[in-house]
């Protein structure tokens, strides 16, 4: 398993492992291309996107419009549906053959399955869930920055001796790459030899979410409720405020554990890490596990009847008061504002 010393000079270029979702280029892939190009520019190397799949050539070709130097499209019938060992093996072979210096993934469920396996197969270091990627100007090494220990520690790691340097990046931190009519790269199709048709895990079917998708990660406005609601019906009020603002409902773990709301609504370290423009926390004390999931919100508003609740230390605006009085008042004020807007409309 252990490789003899690698010659790091043999490794070059920045690879982005892209994903198609229902045939479309996933948003995080475009964000990764943007980051990858920045890193590649600093190193004076190429940015290459690698996509695995079957029968998607036309869609894959569109990636060239985002300013990448090359698209490597690994195509095989067995790889039509996501398959952990098949994807790992196909990408592994290509990495061994072409020797990229840096390999980036989005922190998606696909990457969580294959990136660690690839790192183990390649005997190299992987840092997952990064929030920032950069190049050390002194020696050209990849600097991988992530939050640790529930958000109260920021760590930057390097992978000095092994190659490639691998990392997964949390979605929606970087902007997507710009679309460009002019293209300069090309698509190269790779047909890997994959012998083992049966990787033991068989895909039977997809089970969709029962109700509307709770897309907390991409929400611009989130209104969250906590144990301070006191009872499950409190979420009706939370939803009312969210609807008034065109936002999505979030929750603290305490509210989820009380059984008041489905766990998909949980915000925080063990729920979803969110970064909306507006985050409104109602009846949430602000435990650090909750805080670490909301740090990157542009504006945090806290409503709590305890003036000493920790949430007030990290909010932008705070209101001390009973949420059952404050929220209806807020809804009324917002409606009034919108009414005025319509009144002034010619």
């Amino acid at each position: 398993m252990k490789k003899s010393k690698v010659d790091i000079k043999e490794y070059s270029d920045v690879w982005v492992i892209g994903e198609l979702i229902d045939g479309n280029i996933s948003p995080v892939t475009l964000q990764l291309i943007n980051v990858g190009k920045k890193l590649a520019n600093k190193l004076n190397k190429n940015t290459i996107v690698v996509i695995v799949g079957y029968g998607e050539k036309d869609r894959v070709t569109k990636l060239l419009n985002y300013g990448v130097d090359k698209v490597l499209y690994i195509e095989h019938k067995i790889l039509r549906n996501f398959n952990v060992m098949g994807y790992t093996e196909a990408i592994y072979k290509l990495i061994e053959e072409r020797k990229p210096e840096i390999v980036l993934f989005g922190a998606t469920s696909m990457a969580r399955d294959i990136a660690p396996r690839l790192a183990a197969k390649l005997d190299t270091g992987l840092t997952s869930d990064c929030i920032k990627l950069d190049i050390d100007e002194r020696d050209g090494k990849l600097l991988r920055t992530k939050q640790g220990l529930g958000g109260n520690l920021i760590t930057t790691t390097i992978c000095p001796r092994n190659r490639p340097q691998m990392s997964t990046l949390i979605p929606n931190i970087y902007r997507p790459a710009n679309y460009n009519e002019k293209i300069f790269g090309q698509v190269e199709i790779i047909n890997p030899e994959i012998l083992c048709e049966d990787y033991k895990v068989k895909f039977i079917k997809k089970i969709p979410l029962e109700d509307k998708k709770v897309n907390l990660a991409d929400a611009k406005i989130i209104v969250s409720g906590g144990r301070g609601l006191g009872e499950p019906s409190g979420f009706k009020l939370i939803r009312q405020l969210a609807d008034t603002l065109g936002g999505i409902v979030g929750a603290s773990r305490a509210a989820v554990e009380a059984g008041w709301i489905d766990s998909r609504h949980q915000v925080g370290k063990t729920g979803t890490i969110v970064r909306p423009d507006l985050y409104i926390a109602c009846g949430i004390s602000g435990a650090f596990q909750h805080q670490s999931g909301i740090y990157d919100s542009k504006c945090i508003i806290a409503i709590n009847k305890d003036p000493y609740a920790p949430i007030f230390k990290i909010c932008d605006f705070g209101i001390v008061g009973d949420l059952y009085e404050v929220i209806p008042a807020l809804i009324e004020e917002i409606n009034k504002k919108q009414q005025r807007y319509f009144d002034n409309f010619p």
Partner: protein
Amino acid sequence: MRRIIVCIKQVPETDKIGIKQEKGTLIRENIENIMNPYDKNALEEALIIKDKFDAEVIVITMGPPQAVDVLKEAISMGADEGVLINDEAFSGSDTLATSKVLAAAINKIADYSIIFCGQKAIDGGTAQVGPQIAELLNLPQVTNVKDIKIKGNKLEIVKATEDGAYLLETETPILLTTTTEINNPRSPTMMGINKAYGENGNKRISILSGKDLNINPKEVGLEGSPTNIYDFCMSKKSKTSEMIEGNKAKEKASILINKLSELNYI
């Protein structure tokens, strides 16, 4: 189902963890340690299978000598045996080095049907160890499992994903990582506590060193870890919170909404 191996990690409970300046590794002294909460779901699932199919459940941990506590806790919940993998040479291991050690131990235990890991470790873990063990043992894996049905020698598994779930069918041996949705971990029983902490409790624990596992010390610990810490800092969000003053809820609400509207948030 013959033998089920569960990987459990001892993690510091509080958030008062620091970092050793000179080496960049975690300081763990004087901090209370607990079983990684996610690993309790993994253990519970193994125990559910044990109850139904009479499988043997072995818990393993790599850590300092005091990590034996989590093995005993697991035995008091119903596990049969515990294996502590301990060696000075392991300290400072990153996820890959850790996975190599655990994979070597699992190889030695052998004859397993399922290996369970938790979803992730709360002390800065990022859910890498499970898949890496699977890779090193050349086993298939399913991560984020939220339901398991055993049908003969096949497993029907529901895997949680971003946009719903997948229904999968697999064979053993396999490595699975669990979500917190999958079950509610049980508490220790009196009988279990006796089993773990009673007179013969220590007989249920074995200790393996690097030598027992034929591990080259250069491949593990700080030296064998491809990932090194370069820099770290405590993240202090320096924010000036503005408290909205006013007499009644209505007045406060009106001030806040005006501010948000001025700032173009609504």
